[in-house]
């Protein structure tokens, strides 16, 4: 198993090599087996530092990367990641995403907790949302999104906000600028009528009817929590 807690959990007085080797040995890997792989992992994560550098000499971002290497290097079949992207800039976050996907493709089961729904939507096959210890959402990303109906329509049209708001089934119109709008329907069934009204049988640049994003669902559930 590989476990990555949200907070830093490294021995600051150890070198990068001894830290990674120690944790991997505790996971059952042979010291030489680990040593053969350390450099390639450090390169893959673009860690700024030598294997003999002490952990405390590294920046927080690099410490986070070393911690990720400690979590994954022994090739665990179960990985638990608690807020793995915290403290990482977008470039390093992409490196981690690649590694998570690689680990998943190698057959590992990954349990990954996050408050960033974009990352969840991008990486997860199955989502469980907990509120006060109770499961409030459970299913694949598509299943969960579809539970909330395809009530969101992204459209580009010459019509004004008022004209759009006057159409049947439209409960909210948000102007996204440059004739682009996000329309919320009271029921997804109004989608076809809206398409006809907006396109008038002619070419239309954009019309996309979608369920709410996980981020929106999270907000909705969080509002329900606080209500």
């Amino acid at each position, binding site marked *: *198993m590989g*476990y990555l807690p*949200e*907070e*830093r*959990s*490294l021995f600051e007085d*150890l070198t990068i090599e001894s830290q990674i080797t120690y*944790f991997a040995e*505790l996971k059952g890997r042979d010291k030489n087996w680990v040593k053969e792989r350390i450099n390639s992992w450090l390169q893959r994560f673009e860690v700024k530092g030598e294997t003999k550098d002490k952990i405390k000499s590294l920046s927080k971002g690099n410490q986070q990367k070393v911690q990720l290497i400690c979590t994954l290097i022994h090739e665990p079949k179960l990985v638990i990641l608690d807020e793995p992207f915290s403290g990482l800039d977008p470039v390093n976050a992409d490196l981690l995403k690649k590694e998570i996907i690689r680990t998943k493709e190698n057959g590992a089961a990954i349990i990954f907790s996050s408050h960033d729904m974009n990352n969840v939507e991008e990486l997860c096959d199955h989502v469980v949302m907990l509120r006060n210890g109770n499961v409030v959402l459970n299913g694949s990303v598509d299943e969960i999104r579809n539970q909330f109906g395809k009530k969101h329509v992204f459209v580009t049209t010459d019509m004004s906000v008022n004209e759009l708001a006057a159409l049947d089934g439209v409960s909210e119109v948000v102007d996204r600028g440059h004739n682009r709008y996000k329309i919320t329907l009271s029921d997804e069934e109004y989608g076809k009528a809206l398409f006809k009204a907006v396109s008038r049988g002619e070419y239309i640049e954009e019309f996309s009817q979608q369920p709410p994003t996980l981020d929106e669902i999270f907000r909705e559930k969080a509002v329900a929590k606080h209500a």
Partner: protein
Amino acid sequence: MHKFNIVFMRNYLLHLKSKSFIALLITPIISVLISAGIGVLVAGSTNNFDNYQVAVVGDSSVKSELVSKDKDSIDTSIKSESTAKKELKKDNIDGYIKVSKENNQYKVNFVGSSSLDSDVKTDLLAIVNQKQSEINVKNSNVTNEQYKQLSVKPAFKSSITDKEKKQKTDQTSSANTASIYVLMFISYFFTIIYASIMSTTIAKEKGTKISEVIFSSVSPSTYFSGKVGAVIALMATQMVIYTGVGVVAYFILNMDPFFNSLFTSQHVLISTFVGNIFSINILFIFIGFVISIVLAAICGSLSANVEGASKSAQPLVFLILFIFVLSFNFVNNGSSDSIFSQVGSYIPLFSSFLMPIRLINHNANLFEGIISLLIAIFFIAFVTYKFSNVYKLFMLNSEEGSFFKRIKSALNNK
């Protein structure tokens, strides 16, 4: 066992290579060397001060005999009184002896900045008396037979067997007292030091997520045993190094004539001292260390947070201080066989201080010592087993508040 070895070796080597351990190891050695150096310097300066030198002028036969007896105290380069006066004025000599003979009488005159050294004086008077007697005999016209009769001296016989016995008893008693104090101080200081190392090591991981990561890889009891074992091995390493240094120092010093004669004259004291230390008593010291380390680990795991690491051993330090003061009082009051001392010598940790005192003073026999030792070993096994089972709860518990509140909170999470 494999994971125990990994935890054990990692922690042992980490401590062994740490600057703090190297400082801990060499500081006492440097202190001893500095003390010895100061001693040698003081002895050297004292020797210079004691380098008593006088000149002898006048009668050459007296001078040559005196030189043969007190060569170190006689400056033979000075031949005349005038030179002697000059050298005395310059403070190059402590004085001069002028020996002359007038009218068949030897006359001795000493001039000096301080009184004549008693050894030189005794030898000088013996020589002069002998020579004066010879003159007196010659002038009295007595025969050789009469002279022999006049020279008969009282018989004096000295038997030093009892003195030797007393000296031996005195040396044994001094060795016993010295070994009791040495054992007590070793116990006290090393127990405090290693208890602090242990509790700080554990407490530093408290409140961080390292424990969570570790416990996802290795069982808490194995991890705990490995960490405690590493500190015990570290302490054993230090003891072995000191023993080795002591043995090497003994053999090196023994090559020096001064120390060789010192070791020979103090043979009883040294052998008794070493015998008292390297006996069952050292097992008590070792077991005392182990108990302290285990208890210190518990204290460390009950630290409120990582910031409280340095203070985490305080409850144990106070307990050890109490036992030390108590033992000290028992020794000073000569009450090492009081009922309190007797009972205490069977209570783990107390026994590490009190039982060696009772054994050295012959207040307890070896059998009693072994019983006390077995109780202490059982205690260690029991506490280690029990604690390793709740170690995880203590380490993962983030409750703040009083010491006892933290214990209660941790155990409630079971």
